[in-house]
């Protein structure tokens, strides 16, 4: 792909930024190895957006004679303000990974074998276009499914458009493996299917329920900055940070207090705290009365009486009851509640630990209920709703009957149906459906920025299932676990070679958009997937071609971002779009501070226009799908224990587990490290070499076990052990870790790739081989923590 000269940064504007970072005084330093180092070199600092994780940090990449040598933070980007995490510099090793794919590859041998041959882009695109055209005719466009994972900027919309124009309802995003629980919980309570932003800098108290605040919850650099600010940036005011976590993580270590909680019971703890807030009149009465719905008993428009949140909590969640559920003492619950209320503004937040459970959505709602009770929503120091950049809308799609017919078919993954009423994607359910050919067999599978044969629970099933799909295409720049089983690989650029916009994850509250641009010319014959999708559409002709009236993806981005220019507000303003675009390329970020607090109408996008303790949206959605079935039966079918009004309010659902306690005595906690890059970092030696600093482990995987429990089982430090679940077993080194609960084993997620380059391959174990695929029926989220295991010496 040709990069136009405009797309390259001019040294002058960024040079000023770069030199302000510190003089690059080159002292006369004895050179041991002569050569290039003695010659004058051409240096540029190119700004772009990192993608080792979706934190979206702005970075400045130093290039010497056209090669990238260092990655520093971009001081202009408000998420990270010039700072980076350890993963940033490992991006150099992603770019220069010796095992990267050099161009399109087609599998000539058996799936998964070494029979790869190179193929030209033209041939490859033609191949895909033809195949897709065939499928569209027979059996129909719905038979094409597109799995996407780390989608940034306009790529999501582009893929949606591609599928909509084609006629497939099956854009399967990976969010059911990840953050959907939070989003759905927010949709039910405040009407926004998004994560929340937080005003950490003004916060005085953080109740973190299983949020890997300092390690993996995004954007991590922003949170680390916020943590540091909360500790020491305000004279005489040091925030208290409480980490409620099933494991002593780094966040727990740096927190003021670690509350070791039994896995899956965060909702109960939150409600126990809520109980005290209510019982002791510690809640913000004004906020609750003005901005919440369903706190007191109420009657709906049909005259039906409903119990309020207040009376339900007071009845059901006394700290003594909560203590027996969570293992957290009643005294602690009472104390936390009082501290939380008295240290406002304070925030209750949660993360994967609380949410990726069979009761995850309700856990999240319970956590948000705390914010509602203390009035910590849409105020300084509290939870905020992220503003989004004002994109120019996508143009309408051309009408097409084939597409319409396809889109009318049921989604392949059952999202939004009676099976998973609230889900938009149910990624982890694909294998069973692919194997059964239900609701219909798939004809083609596209895999973009996701690695189902690594990241799925019960990953073995995916290995079986993928064989059922006749045509698999991957866009991965690497021969990873999934692309190794593809028929065709159309490698994307690595993110340092790519032009792509990057809207930040909800965090700062005000709209921020980053722009990723190539820092070096592409090393290989790779192509931006955005361009490739447009080219495939073009090659297909007809309505597909008509749906993509842009020459390339860069045009798409510019078109969509023209809305930001037209907005005439924010950090970049220009009379001409071309100047706006140049400035955006130069700075790599556009933002529109400050966050305007108190926009109640925008923030509470619910039927009542308020925070809903009783989720009317949930009620309506379930009612719609209920048909004639009795509520009790319907709720039971969804795996919901609660009945009556309670089922639509934040409440505690006992989590479901795979495996009987008598046989599998331990909970399995798979956790994320700061040095892990969503499984993508395993091919970077720098991250591998410092992977498990807290247990002095590197280049390996391990399982953390409580030392007393280990002693009882005769397991010593560094012993080989088997971790076995009802679906499989893996062998790992044991680490005796005092921060492990006696009832829980902890395995970090990152290792155990079967492919993905020389440093990732066959290293350690992937816990997904023992994690069963269990979902929350209501929301379709993968319950990562539902698998019970046993451990024994190998």
């Amino acid at each position: 792909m040709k990069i136009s000269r405009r797309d390259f940064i001019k040294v002058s504007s960024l040079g000023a930024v770069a030199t302000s970072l510190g003089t690059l005084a080159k002292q006369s330093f004895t050179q041991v190895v002569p050569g290039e180092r003695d010659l004058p070199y051409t240096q540029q600092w190119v700004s772009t957006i990192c993608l080792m994780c979706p934190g979206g940090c702005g970075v400045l990449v130093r290039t010497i004679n056209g090669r990238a040598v260092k990655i520093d933070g971009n001081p202009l980007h408000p998420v990270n303000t010039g700072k980076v995490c350890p993963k940033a510099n490992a991006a150099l090793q992603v770019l220069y990974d010796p095992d990267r794919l050099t161009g399109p590859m087609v599998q000539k041998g058996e799936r998964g074998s070494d029979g790869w041959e190179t193929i030209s882009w033209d041939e490859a695109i033609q191949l895909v276009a033809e195949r897709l055209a065939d499928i569209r005719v027979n059996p129909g466009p719905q038979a094409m499914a597109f799995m996407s994972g780390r989608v940034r900027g306009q790529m999501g919309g582009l893929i949606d458009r591609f599928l909509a124009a084609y006629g497939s309802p099956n854009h399967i995003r990976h969010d059911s493996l990840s953050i959907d629980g939070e989003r759905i919980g927010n949709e039910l309570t405040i009407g926004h299917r998004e994560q929340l932003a937080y005003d950490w800098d003004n916060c005085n108290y953080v109740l973190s329920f299983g949020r890997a605040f300092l390690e993996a919850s995004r954007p991590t650099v922003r949170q680390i900055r916020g943590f540091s600010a909360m500790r020491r940036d305000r004279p005489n005011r040091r925030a208290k940070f409480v980490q409620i976590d099933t494991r002593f993580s780094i966040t727990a270590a740096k927190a003021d207090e670690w509350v070791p909680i039994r896995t899956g019971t965060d909702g109960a703890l939150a409600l126990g705290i809520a109980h005290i807030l209510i019982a002791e009149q510690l809640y913000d009465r004004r906020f609750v009365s003005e901005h919440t719905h369903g706190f007191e008993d109420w009657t709906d428009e049909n005259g039906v009486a409903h119990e309020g949140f207040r009376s339900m909590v007071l009845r059901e969640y006394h700290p003594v009851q909560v203590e027996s559920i969570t293992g957290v003492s009643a005294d602690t619950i009472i104390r936390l509640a009082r501290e939380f209320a008295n240290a406002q503004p304070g925030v209750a937040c949660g993360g994967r630990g609380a949410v990726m459970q069979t009761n995850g959505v309700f856990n999240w709602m319970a956590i948000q209920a705390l914010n509602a009770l203390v009035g910590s929503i849409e105020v300084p120091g509290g939870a905020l709703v992220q503003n989004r950049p004002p994109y120019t809308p996508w143009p309408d799609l051309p009408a097409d009957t084939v597409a319409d017919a396809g889109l009318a078919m049921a989604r392949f993954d059952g999202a939004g149906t009676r099976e998973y009423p609230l889900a938009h994607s149910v990624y982890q359910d694909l294998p069973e459906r692919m194997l059964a050919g239900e609701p219909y067999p798939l004809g083609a599978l596209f895999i973009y920025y996701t690695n189902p044969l690594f990241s799925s629970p019960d990953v073995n099933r995916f290995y079986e299932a993928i064989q059922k799909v006749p045509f698999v295409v991957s866009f991965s720049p690497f021969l990873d676990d999934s692309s190794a089983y593809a028929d065709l690989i159309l490698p994307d650029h690595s993110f340092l070679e790519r032009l792509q916009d990057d809207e930040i994850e909800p965090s700062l509250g005000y709209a921020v958009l980053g722009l990723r641009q190539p820092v070096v010319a592409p090393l290989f014959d790779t192509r931006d997937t955005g361009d490739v999708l447009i080219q495939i559409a073009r090659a297909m002709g007809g309505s597909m071609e008509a749906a993509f009236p842009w020459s390339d993806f860069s045009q798409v981005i510019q078109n969509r971002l023209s809305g930001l220019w037209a907005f005439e507000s924010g950090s970049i303003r220009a009379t001409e779009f071309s100047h706006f675009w140049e400035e955006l390329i130069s700075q790599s970020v556009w933002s529109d501070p400050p966050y305007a607090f108190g926009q109640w109408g925008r923030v509470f996008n619910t039927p009542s226009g308020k925070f809903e303790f009783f989720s009317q949206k949930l009620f309506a959605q379930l009612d719609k799908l209920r048909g004639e079935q009795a509520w009790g039966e319907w709720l039971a079918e969804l795996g919901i224990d609660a009945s009556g009004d309670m089922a639509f309010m934040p409440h505690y659902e006992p989590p479901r587990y795979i495996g009987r306690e008598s046989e599998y005595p331990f909970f399995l906690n798979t956790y994320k490290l700061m040095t892990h890059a969503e499984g993508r970092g395993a091919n970077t030696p720098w991250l591998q070499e410092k992977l498990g600093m807290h247990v002095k482990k590197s280049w390996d995987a391990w399982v953390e076990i409580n030392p007393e429990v280990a002693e009882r089982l005769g397991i010593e430090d560094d012993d080989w052990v088997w971790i076995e679940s009802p679906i499989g077993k893996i062998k790992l080194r044991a680490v005796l870790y005092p921060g492990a609960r006696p009832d829980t084993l902890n395995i970090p997620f990152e290792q155990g790739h079967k492919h993905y380059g020389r440093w990732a391959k066959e290293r350690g174990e992937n816990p997904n081989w023992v994690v069963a695929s269990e979902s929350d029926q209501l929301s379709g989220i993968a319950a990562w923590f539902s698998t019970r295991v046993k451990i024994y010496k190998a």
Partner: protein
Amino acid sequence: MPHWGMVIDLDRCVACQACSAACRAENNVSFAGPEETALGRAIYWQEVLAEVDGEYPNVRGTFIPRPCMHCENPPCVRVCPVGATYQNEEGLVLQRYERCIGCRYCMVACPYAVRYFNWRAPEWAEGMERYQNPDVPIRPKGVVEKCTFCTHRLPVPACNQACPGNARFFGDLEDPDSVVSQLARSPRAFRLLEDLGTEPKVYYLREGA
């Protein structure tokens, strides 16, 4: 002439290791690989020391980022037979790679174990030599190396620049008004192994209120 010193606020540090990673990228410290790392040969000019101890549920984690201390009274300089290790006028303890005979006496003498040896010639996998920084020499086999406070890019060492917690400070200890001097006088300030008399120039600020 400034006399450089560093302050690391452990209440802001979150043990993310951004410092260690940035240092390696800046200073051409290649990776050792799995076998060599298991043999104890990996080089980290800046390393985060970690101890998690206690008994469940009373567990404590201590994480201390550890660059070279650039001691005012460096035991390493005292024992180097050839003056390959020396202290410059700005107080930095540096290494003359071309003079080092690899006897490793300085490594043995350093109580902080901040010194590293090139047990073999550093390797860059094919193509990875492209991200080498031309401002920093590549060290050959058989010589000692360690943190230089990024003498080639003062006054902001790479570790300090990266730190997302804004936990690291650097400056002139001889200027009583500099940030590092003020922080070094803080009641929270301490240094590692202070009673050995090495006079390290890296100060830490205690965690907690």
